[in-house]
Each structure stands twice: as structure tokens, then as C-alpha cells.
């Protein structure tokens, strides 16, 4: 029998999470005919793309990147997205919410709090269908939100793209059942077991470059609905709102109309990690889209949201 030295085979939890995520990325490539990796230019999808690169190294990643673009994204995000895809030599497919609106399959919301966030679901499903993708890899994490906390790694969707949270497949050990009928597909979440802190620690330890939006900088903002929104073409100050220049950063990056900024001096990774460690609010606390009702996330997910 070989000598075993348990101490030297200790694997810290971050490497366990990395190994698990890579395993799931490879399972997805193997079990599906046409998977795609949802890539928004946010930190979770950046970590996903990085993991995919590691999983298939030295080959290119065996699936395209898909971005559902609301048209209301930060310029920095779009630039980062294009550069990163080019760096990976990956195919980038962009689904435009505007196209769905023009086609009449999605209807623009009206009013001050109007957001294209909900419309993303329509465009996402249309993009998946147009390209016949049968699995979409997402960067969703269970620690983000209480409905996400319930989701499987391999999350089955019916032929309308809907999630049935009351009737999920059992998912045991490391065995993933990706079998499906024609027209059905899967959402796959390799980062399920990661926390926000894990993501930041990983970005730091792997030296992954991020869009500048994540680091503190000066920006014009307005106070709205208890948070800070960056002003832009899509977020105009309303009557009674004062535009201020504050030192801010973003904890998550999504659509400009619903992603709040936080005041911060954290301008490097270590400072961000300190900030994450002492945060009193969840990162989605800055997302207006989750606050619309108690089960907003579940309701959107049932319809086919990420």
C-alpha cells in the first residue's frame, strides 16, 4: 500500500470550489450538443469564463459566449466584453433586447422606474432558440438570493424555458442528469456554491482583470428609491433629484437603470475584500429589480430568467 500523507493532500475550500466548477463546465460540454456561456461582463461571468478557459486548456473553450444586451449597459462593460471574448478567441453572440422590442415580442416599460431587466428574459429565450442552444451556463450563485438558494447545478427548463421549483430533479453526489426531451433545455450554474467573498478571493488569487466599474471612482449619481443610480442617457434626474458627484463603486454590474452604486473608497482588490467582509447588505440589495416583490426573483426565474 502506498504511503498517504493526509496533510499534503489538503485542498483549501477555494480550490475545492474551483475543481467543482471545472467539473461542471466539462460535464456541460460533454452532456449537451450545443451549450453556451452567458457572459455579461459582470464579475461572476468573468470568473466563469476564466474557469472555462482553465477547464479546456490548451484548447479553446468549446462553446460561444452569449450576451443579452439591454442596450442600457455601461460602456466599460461592453468594451470589456468585446476585449475578453477576443482574448479568449471565443465566438461572441449578442442578443439585443431592442430587437425583441422592434419585433413586438417585448414591450418597453414606462415611467421613472422603467427597466429593461424583465425584457431580458424574452431576448434570452429567443437567442437560445434561434441558435438551438440546449444548455446555458450562468454565473448565478446560491448565496445571492433566496430563490437561487434552491436551485440545482443542472436546472431543467421545459420547452417554454420555465423553471418548476416545486418539482426539481434530485441531484445527488456529483452525478448530473442532463437528459431532456426535444425542445427542453438546461441552465447550468457552476458557481452555485460560491459566495461573494469566494468570487473576490478567487479574482485576487488568479489575478483576473476586471472592469474599472468595480473599483471606486468619481461618478455623477442621483439618490433614488433608497439607493444611488448613475446618471446617463437612460437615467435622467427627475424633478427634485439633485445630481451629485460621489466617490462610488458597483458591487454587481447589470443594466444601468437598476444597478445601484455604493459610496466607497475601495480602489484595489484588498480594499474591496475588506469592504465585502464588513458589508451589512447583500450585493443584490443594490438591485432594484429584486425589490419589486417578495418573490420577484422566483417569479422571474419561473418565466425563464437567468
Amino acid at each position, binding site marked *: *500500500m*502506498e504511503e*498517504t500523507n*493526509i496533510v499534503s*493532500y*489538503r*485542498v*483549501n*475550500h*477555494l*480550490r*475545492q470550489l*474551483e475543481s*467543482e466548477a471545472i*467539473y461542471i463546465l*466539462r*460535464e456541460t*460540454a*460533454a452532456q449537451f450538443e450545443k451549450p453556451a456561456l452567458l457572459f455579461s461582463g459582470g464579475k461572476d461571468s468573468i470568473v466563469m469564463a476564466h474557469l472555462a478557459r482553465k*477547464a479546456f*486548456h*490548451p*484548447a*479553446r473553450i468549446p462553446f460561444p459566449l452569449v450576451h443579452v444586451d439591454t442596450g442600457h449597459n455601461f460602456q466599460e462593460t461592453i468594451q470589456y466584453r468585446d476585449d475578453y471574448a477576443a482574448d479568449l478567441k471565443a465566438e461572441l453572440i449578442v442578443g439585443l433586447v431592442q430587437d425583441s422590442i422592434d419585433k413586438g415580442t417585448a414591450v418597453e416599460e414606462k415611467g421613472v422606474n422603467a427597466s429593461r431587466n424583465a425584457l431580458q428574459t424574452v431576448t434570452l429565450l429567443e437567442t437560445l432558440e434561434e441558435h438551438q442552444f440546449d444548455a446555458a451556463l450562468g454565473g448565478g450563485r*446560491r448565496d445571492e438570493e*433566496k*430563490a437561487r*438558494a*434552491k436551485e440545482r447545478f443542472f436546472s431543467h427548463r421545459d420547452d417554454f424555458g420555465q423553471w418548476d*421549483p*416545486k418539482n*426539481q*430533479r*434530485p*441531484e*445527488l*453526489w*456529483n*452525478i448530473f*442528469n442532463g*437528459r*431532456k426531451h426535444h425542445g427542453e433545455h438546461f441552465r447550468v450554474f457552476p458557481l*452555485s*456554491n460560491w*459566495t461573494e*467573498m469566494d468570487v473576490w*478571493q478567487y479574482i*485576487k*488569487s488568479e489575478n483576473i482583470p476586471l472592469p474599472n466599474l468595480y473599483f471606486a471612482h468619481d461618478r455623477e449619481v442621483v439618490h433614488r428609491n433608497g439607493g444611488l443610480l448613475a446618471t446617463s442617457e437612460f437615467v435622467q434626474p427627475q424633478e427634485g433629484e439633485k445630481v451629485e458627484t460621489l466617490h462610488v463603486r458597483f458591487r454587481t454590474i447589470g443594466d444601468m437603470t437598476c444597478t445601484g452604486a455604493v459610496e466607497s473608497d475601495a480602489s484595489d482588490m*484588498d480594499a474591496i475584500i*475588506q469592504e465585502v467582509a*464588513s458589508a*451589512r*447588505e*447583500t450585493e443584490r*440589495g443594490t438591485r432594484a429589480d429584486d425589490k419589486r416583490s*417578495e*418573490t420577484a426573483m*422566483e*417569479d422571474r426565474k419561473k418565466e425563464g430568467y437567468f
Partner: protein
Amino acid sequence: MTEEETFSSEGYLDMDLLRFTTAGSVDDGKSTLIGRLLYDSKNTFDDQLAAVEESSKNRGDENVNLALLTDGLRAEREQGITIDVAYRYFATPKRKFIIADTPGHIQYTRNMVTGASTANLAIILVDARHGVIEQTMRHAFIANLLRIRHVVLAVNKMDLVDYEQAAFDKIVTQFKEFASRLDNIVDMTPIPLSALKGDNVVDKSTEMPWYEGPSLLYHLENVYIGTDQNHVEARFPVQWVIRPHSDEHHDFRGYAGRVAGGVFKPGDEVTIEPSGFKSKIKSIEGFDGPQEQTFAPLSSTITLEDDVDLSRGDMIVKSNNPPKKDQEIEAMICWFSEGKQLQPRGKYYLRHTTKEVKAIVQEVRYKVNINTLHKIEDDKSFGLNEIGRVSIRTSSPLLYDSYRRNRTTGSFVLIDQQTNETVAAGMIV
């Protein structure tokens, strides 16, 4: 962590990980306990708490209902029960935890098994007023079957029995008598607590001076778990073959997978199963260059000295201690399908590591009576939530170890060929 302390990344990256699951009957207080654990250890966020307070008020609950921290689905909140497993994450300066809060309702046993399949420790809750009931035993039996070796017997709702030692002692005796027949459990720690009031969850209770043991959190932070990885018998199920088709890596052929047991190093003599070809490991590829070794549970890419025929579902093993190779296996299974019973001589897909084969369940050897742990041999019908032993024949050989030796190469699931549903979990004997 207090606000003034600075967070240490070194400390964070050097922590042990403990995965635990809750178990026990409906309403015994599992979700409330997890909520309490998160709340009292300051692992909840202000916006989460505000949302829970608001919902509790709207529902007319007397207290802030901490179960709402994990019962996140609309149907769960409406009915006040857990339907599917919720995963929660928290860390103290000592350990990092992944919690699976599972449902107690018998109808959702498959979700309990899902949560328990990856756990190293189970907190089995009992309502101090009701004692050990059938569902407690079912969950304890399943935890044991899955080889969860560490158990906390949480006698909950002590506030409803006036914090009396007699009530606690009685349940501990009851449980021990049953658990003495569960041979995989190596340690069982009973703790009297009140999830609702917070007694003995994070802080030691002042209501139960007769109890001298630790609080639940203290125990979770300090219990010795060791590793459940097998670092002796080398197993590498191949997931995917990496062929770059680029000029730079023209002849590269790497076998990607996650080590399921043992240690692999360049130069090791290996056998490819099921073909039986022999070769040597040429390199272990990493993103940052060649690696000296790889071991369970790392994901890696292996290259070999020889061009052999090798694809997904095959296994690279060390020549000196091969796995079993057979088309006939004996296994304990847990049946999950609501709609369909196990069919006599029924055909299923069987998924085992990275391999999928067709399988026939040849015979039900026996079922287990959860209350008595006796074998039922005269009734072979096998329905929802039943557990028992079967013999299975597969369309091509499986490369396996007993579940006892290796959780990865010893486990499988059965999939219904019509519905594609996962209908059973299996543990090879």
C-alpha cells in the same frame, strides 16, 4: 467579526470546509434553527433581515420567523414548510460552512437525500414534546446509508417542555437505542436547544444549567471531521478529451476529469479500463504549466505516453490496485419516483461517474422496514421513498468500488427512459 477587526484573506483561505445537512420530521424546527444560527452568528445581512421582519409581520407571526431566511419559495412561505433543499453559506474565523436545509415532509424525501448526499455531518432534529418518530428514524437511516459519519441529535423546542432534563434524557436514550444499529455513525452528540429562543444555538443557554456540553455552533466549529477522500486507490474517470486542433498544440491529447481517488504523478504506470491497455502518465497539465501530482478531488488533465483509445466514461487507474469490473452489481437504492414504482426487470439508464449504461433491475432482494430496520422479503413492490437492496445487470461493465470505500465510484443514479427523471439513488454494496 466585529466591524473594527480587519478581515484576513490568509485566514479565509486556510479554513476547513464543513458541509452539513439538517434532518428530521416536519415542523421540528430545522429551518428556524438554521435561521437562528445565521442570525446569532451575525451571518445575516440587514436587507435580508428587514425582508424577513416585513414578511413575518404581514403573515401575522408572533415572532420574527427566522425560517423565512431559508424557506425562499413562494409555496414554502405560503404553507410554512420546506419543500426543497436550500443551501446557505457562512464562515466563522474557524471554519467555512455549507449548509443544506432539507424538508422534513415525507413527500419530499428525495430533496432531503439530495442535500444529504454531499454532507459530512447531519443535525437530526427532534421535537422535545414528541420524541423520536418514524420520520426521525427514516432520516437517520438515510444519513447512515449515505455514510454521514457525524451526527448531532438536536433536541429542539426545549422551551415547550420547561427546559427539563428528563425530557432531553428520554429522547437521547430513545435515539441511541435506534442509532446503535446504524453502523456508519462514528460520533453522535446530543444537544438540548430552542431554535426559537436561541438557547444553545450560538450561545450557551442560561435556562439549562444541567447541560454541560457545548453550544451547537461551538460543536460545529470544533468537531473533528477528517477527510472523506480515498487517497489510496487511484481512480480517474475521463470526462472529456482535450484536442486543441491548433498548430501550436497539434499532437496534444489530454484526458480531462476529476480525480475520484488516490494520487497520480508523471511516470506512474496506469491501466486504461475497461480496455485493459497499459501506459504511463506523461504529464499532468495545469493552466499555469505542468503539475507534480494530482489527487482527489482536483479537476485535472492527464496526458499519456502512448496513443491509446480512450474516451468519456473510461477510467485511468493505477495498475497495482484496480477497481472492480463487472456487469452485475448489488446495491442499496432509495426510490424517488412519485408516479412510477420500480418495475420488475425494468430497464433504466444508469449513470455512474462519467459513464452512462443501460441497466436492468434483476431482483429486489429485500426492502427495509424503517421502524424496525428489519428486512421485508415477502413484498417486492418498490415505491416512493422505499429503501432496499437490489441486484442490477448493466449493458457494459462498470468500473466501481463499494460505496463504503469510495463515495464517487460507489454511487450511481437510475434514470427513467421515458421521462428522463432521476428515479433512484444507488450505493454499491
